[in-house]
């Protein structure tokens, strides 16, 4: 590796920073309890003697924030900021370190479209000032919006480097997957008649608060989910999509009012265990936090929700039966790993997602809730997730799909409900899908559009 033509051998982050390289990752490296100014100057606060020079620190922080057009007082604690602002604070910090090379790893994974636009504007300005950016992303439209040159990696090796002007999205995808993709969202209609008669899941006038005694956060949510159907949920960050799924599953919030019927029977006091037993499963958006025990093997994770199925005399796990069942999911989901005894933490995002899905599906569910199932995974793995959704609905399972990417939501759903600040923003049948209408509903202006 060479930096400015010099061979570079870094022994730690400090070396890289000295060479002018800053890395901004998917996970935030900010300390929530400290202020914006303290975070920007973390580890290199301006000093006067032994003391931190707070005045100078705040002045310089304010100047930097103004440079970036951020109207945030430097004293604000970072925990009070939105995810998009946090991302920008990281970039501000990197820029103050006089970085000449900025490496951004999926910087927009958690940002809304407006926040992405702000971020890209700043990157363009930095580029104009002579900063080199390496922008790692699965979102191709962003790559094309910002990049001069595009390098495509697959399975750990360089496949191609293209000038952005000459590249096209299908060409890039072809390099990523290694074959032509004709249909990005291959939704096939499910078998609505395959499931039991009546709705698989019915939600009526559901009001849910964050905790007991607080005002409702989700208000008046009503919908019916039929067997063999994909119901999409969209909305802006914080509209309550994840909270709704977590609540139905029994892992979030305090129900104030309303009714939930699962397979026609009330699901009044859900717990994750009870939901799984009754055929309602959730694959969470945050794989490493909510999905996997990363220190354990793939097999350990796959069977974790289904262990009771393999017990003999109610105690002993039948290791052979478990192994066979794990192997079935390991193969059918095409998890790329030497064996099911590989540590889950060693897998790529897409393969971790497959393990999370496998764990949910092994329980034999009738309603599958997928929260951002394709976040941070590559195009090939995305396609496999879509095919899996088709397979599930073809077997008569009902799917709830939450996604921040409108094209995906529109491509894979039979119906879409947009949430707006915890309430129903609008409901659309497949024939009525359009980006404008969905966005308007997400903004709470369904009727104005």
């Amino acid at each position, binding site marked *: 590796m060479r930096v400015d033509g010099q061979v570079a051998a870094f022994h730690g982050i400090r070396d890289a920073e000295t060479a002018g390289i800053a890395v901004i990752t998917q996970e935030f490296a900010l300390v929530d309890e400290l202020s914006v100014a303290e975070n920007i100057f973390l580890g290199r606060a301006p000093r006067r003697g032994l003391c931190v020079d707070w005045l100078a620190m705040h002045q310089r922080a304010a100047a930097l924030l103004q440079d970036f057009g951020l109207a945030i007082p430097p004293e604000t604690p970072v925990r009070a900021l939105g995810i998009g602002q946090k991302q920008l604070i990281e970039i501000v910090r990197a820029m103050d370190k006089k970085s000449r090379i900025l490496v951004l790893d999926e910087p927009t994974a958690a940002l809304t479209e407006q926040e992405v636009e702000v971020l890209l504007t700043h990157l363009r300005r930095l580029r104009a000032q002579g900063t080199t950016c390496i922008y790692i992303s699965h979102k191709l439209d962003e790559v094309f919006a910002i990049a001069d040159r595009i390098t495509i990696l697959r399975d750990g090796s360089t496949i191609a480097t293209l000038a952005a002007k000459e590249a096209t999205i299908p060409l890039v995808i072809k390099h990523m997957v290694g074959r032509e993709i004709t249909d990005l969202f291959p939704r096939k209609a499910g078998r609505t008649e395959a499931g039991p008669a009546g709705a698989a899941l019915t939600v009526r006038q559901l009001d849910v608060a964050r905790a007991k005694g607080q005002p409702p956060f989700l208000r008046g949510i009503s919908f019916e989910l039929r067997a063999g159907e994909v119901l999409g949920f969209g909305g802006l960050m914080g509209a309550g999509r994840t909270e709704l799924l977590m609540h139905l*599953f029994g*892992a979030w919030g305090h129900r104030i009012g309303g009714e939930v019927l699962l397979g026609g029977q009330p699901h009044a006091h859900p*717990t*994750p*265990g009870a*939901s*799984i*037993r009754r055929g309602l499963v*959730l694959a*969470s958006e945050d794989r490493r*936090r*909510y*999905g*996997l*025990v*990363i*220190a*354990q093997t793939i097999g*350990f994770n796959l069977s*974790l*929700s289904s*262990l*009771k199925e393999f*017990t003999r005399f109610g*105690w*002993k*796990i039948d*290791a*052979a039966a478990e*192994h*066979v069942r794990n192997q079935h999911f390991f193969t059918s989901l095409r998890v790329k790993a030497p064996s099911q005894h590989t540590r889950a933490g060693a897998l790529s995002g897409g393969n971790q997602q497959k393990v999370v899905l496998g*764990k949910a599906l092994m*329980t034999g569910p009738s309603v599958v809730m997928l929260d951002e199932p394709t976040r941070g995974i590559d195009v090939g793995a995305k396609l496999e997730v879509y095919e899996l959704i088709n397979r599930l609905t073809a077997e008569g399972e009902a799917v709830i799909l939450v996604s921040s990417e409108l094209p995906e939501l529109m491509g894979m759903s039979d119906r879409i409900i947009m949430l707006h600040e915890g309430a129903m923003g609008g409901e659309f049948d497949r024939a009525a899908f359009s980006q404008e209408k969905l966005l308007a509903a997400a903004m709470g202006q369904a009727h104005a559009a």
Partner: protein
Amino acid sequence: MKARALLKNFAMPLALLAIFVFFTLWLDRDALLRRPGASFVFLSPRNLSHLLVEFSNTAVLALGMFMIILTGNIDLSVGSGAGMIGGIGAVLVSQQGWSAPAAMLAGLGVALVLWFLMGALIVKQRIPSFIITLGGMQIFKGVFWRVINNSTIDIRSGGRDNLFSDIATYSLPAGRGEFLCVAALAIYAWILWRARRARVALGLAVEPPRNPGLKWGVAALAGFGLVAVCNNFKGLPAALLILAATAIVVYFLTQHTPFGRYLYAIGGNEEAAVLSGINVDRVIIGAFVFMGATAGLTGYMITSYQGTSSTTVGGLMELDAIAACVIGGTALKGGRGTVWGVLFGALIMTSLLNGMTLIPVEEWVNYVARGTVLVLAVWLDVRLGRD
């Protein structure tokens, strides 16, 4: 890399060997050189038998602690708790005239209830286990001293041995030990063979037959060696059998039941465990109830070993149990650890203590050495554990 992996796998046996070699050279030099009048001190059948009982006492408690630590919790109350349960048993036997089995069952019942309550407080009120059990440690100590009235209570009534006084002092007569050893080895061979057959049936790769053969050979050597040494003193100690039974139960629970998987899952990622449908509260309470059982058992064993219940019984024993787990490679933040490791850790800890009592070193050296071994073991584990 290979040397490092080798070192990691054999670090504990090597440490144990080093401790044995050190104390042998220090204490048994004269006997080794066959100087007239010299006899073995550290390696004498008498001392090794005592060492085995001390090891059993610590290891039973450490195995209970192991399941707590797997979930990322800790229990600081077990030392004084064990003392207290022993004290309750002693008072019931010698002052209330209860029969030993009845007194021990009553004490065990008290232990199960107390540890159930601590577990419930930890999970339902969301108070860290460190705090609850720190409180428990002091409350149990206070109750203990009140129960035995700050005195020394005999565990025999009328000077006759009973189940309570025998639990850590009884030894199997010669012949019985050999028989047990043969039976255990036969069962072990059968288990090894069955595991191998299961792997073949699944079409999995099997090790060359020499590996399980080697395992069995080492077990046979260790087993018969143990019996031979013990028979030169009083015979195989019953305490060791209690430990063996506890270890088998803990091994089975942690490796072959959903409960055990849940322990690892909770320690590895509690939020993911909740969302996988695991009733985390119930599992943690279960681990604490089991801890209560081992604490009660240990209480009887250490009280029996000392012969009387007095205020010092069980003091700081929780730290030995935690140290045994950690030396044995159990991660304090949970999710990682093995039964074998814990047994090795306990053996290292007790060998060190036993040897230092024989030298004898001053009390301060004793503490410094224990602390050093603990820090060294963890440091080595962290260094070698990195990928």
